[in-house]
């Protein structure tokens, strides 16, 4: 069987070749972000194996130990659980939720954006009006309402975040597709009788991959932030399962006596979100067709 090159895949790899990769590598902040994310992910998934304590192990004699005491690198929480161990396994959950929510919302946003941009007319009006309607809710309100009434498991939180953050992608994709749908190659494809789904998936999608990848990266940052918001307010990931957001949940009442409870998880969130934003910025510089000559 001869290997038929898949145009969508080829486009993705073409995007990561040549001047664009070099351009991305030159973007110092983006590289810094990439390195930070790789290290953070490694630490979260491999780190727990090197720590003497389990994230759920309760040691009431060691409550509120400050960082660097009794083998607790980052101290302990009100139940004497090791914060470093909790931080890493919380990171596994927060990063996974953020990444999965990004995949879901990018899929939803891309599908709706392509259909709206390709068909135009009433289809576009209807779909984009729906996008506007979703954007009219402050997303935290909508998310909290959903989270408060549905059983908040990590999977449910992921779905809720995805359902409330696909609109940005849909808008970007719709705008890009509208330009592509009017071009000659689309007309040519239609003329040889290609079905709509083929033209959308095989002809147009590869041409709008750049903006989608950029939007997706920024969506990971957003999703991690949103998870932190709802978990902080107590409607997200439920204890004893740790997440970066719910580790901050009770931190405020111990702000005076144990400030490390608040500082440590917040730094992790900020680090992860900043890194994804930097990567997104670098990708935008590298993938923006207008900026590569």
């Amino acid at each position, binding site marked *: 069987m001869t290997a038929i090159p898949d145009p969508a895949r080829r486009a993705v790899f073409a995007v990561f070749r040549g001047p664009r990769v070099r351009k991305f590598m030159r973007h110092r*902040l983006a590289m810094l972000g990439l390195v930070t994310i790789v290290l953070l992910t490694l630490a979260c998934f491999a780190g727990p194996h090197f720590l003497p304590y389990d994230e759920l192990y309760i040691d009431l004699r060691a409550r509120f130990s400050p960082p660097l005491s009794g083998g607790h690198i980052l101290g302990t929480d009100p139940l004497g659980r090791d914060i470093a161990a909790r931080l890493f396994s919380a990171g596994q959950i927060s990063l996974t939720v953020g990444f999965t929510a990004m995949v879901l919302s990018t899929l939803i946003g891309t599908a709706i954006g392509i259909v709206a941009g390709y068909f135009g007319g009433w289809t576009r009006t209807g779909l984009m*009006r*729906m996008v*506007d*309607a*979703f*954007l*009219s*809710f*402050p*997303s*935290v*309100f*909508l998310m*909290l*309402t*959903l989270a*408060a*009434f*549905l*059983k908040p498991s990590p999977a449910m939180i992921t779905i809720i975040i995805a359902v409330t953050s696909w609109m940005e992608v849909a808008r970007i994709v719709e705008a890009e597709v509208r330009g592509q749908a009017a071009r000659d190659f689309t007309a040519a494809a239609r003329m040889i009788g290609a079905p709509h789904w083929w033209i959308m998936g095989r002809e147009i999608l590869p041409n709008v991959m750049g903006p989608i990848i950029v939007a997706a990266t920024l969506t990971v*940052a957003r999703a991690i*932030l949103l998870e*932190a*918001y709802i978990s*902080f*307010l107590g*409607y997200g990931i439920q204890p004893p399962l740790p997440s970066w957001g719910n580790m*901050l949940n009770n*931190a*405020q009442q111990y*702000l*005076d006596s144990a*400030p490390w409870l*608040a*500082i440590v998880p*917040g730094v992790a*969130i*900020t680090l992860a*979100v*900043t890194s994804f*934003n*930097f990567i997104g*910025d670098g990708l935008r510089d590298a993938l923006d067709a207008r900026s590569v000559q």
Partner: protein
Amino acid sequence: MIRFLLHRTLQGIVLILIVSMIGFAVINLAPGGPLSQYALTPGISQADLERIAHQMGLDRPLPIQYLDWLSKLIVGDWGSSYRDQSPVLSVIWRHMWATLLLMGCATVISVVLGTLIGVLGALRRYSLFDYVATVGAMIALSIPTFWFGLIAIFFFSLELGWLPAGNMYTVGDQSLGDYAIHLIMPSAVLALVNVAIWSRYMRASTLDVMDQDYVRTARAKGLPRWRIISAHIVRNALIPMITLAGLQLPTIIGGALVTETVFTWPGLGRLFIDSLGYNDYPVIMGLLMFSAILTVVGNFLADVGVALADPRIRLG
């Protein structure tokens, strides 16, 4: 102009209708539903629950319930709170002022600071200041608002003891100065994200304007630099920002929610969190609708504002 107003009003009504359907669906299709809080009453029987459901009209088909709810919404009957039976609209009204005060202050801070940083960054493009402002804005966008609030409380209230850690006023001392001192930290924390966003857009907008012919003309006829900047560049660069201000409304309302929680500020955000805890459906629904209507109206006003500020734009 009249055609534009009619068209946009119609659009706005359609949008609010879609919004209301989404909100209604979210609340009523979720498991549990409005009856869940009665179901917790000890010793309540299935027959009792069914009777309550019938009294509240919850046993009717959902579309009928929706139409009933909508028709009451339009005439200003937003239901009454499950908690104290007071009408939803008056509950919202009571809490609205605290939130408006907080949002107003935060908006003033973000517009002034954001404009300043954005314009300076554009005038001194690629300078150290521009670089620091760019990176700073991205980091500011990445800090969770509530965590920034916690850190601010830690430093300014606990370590330095300069500012109160929460609430809107000291009991017994409700002077203007007392309000002001309580307002500083929450509004600064709430403003952070918007300063970052505003400065980025202002920088881009200023760069666009600086390339325009009329700026070159102003320079060619020998106007002093400050005059070109203030009268020609900044004024024109601000026009697209009016639209941005409309679009930022949901963000700032959402931000107010966590800021109010951290600083125990008695506004709509706290009301929302409390109502969620009590399963107070009418208030939750009312707040969802209220924030959505506010956003739609805000965007509409922004569009009108742009047209008023820029004579080149004719609405139609």
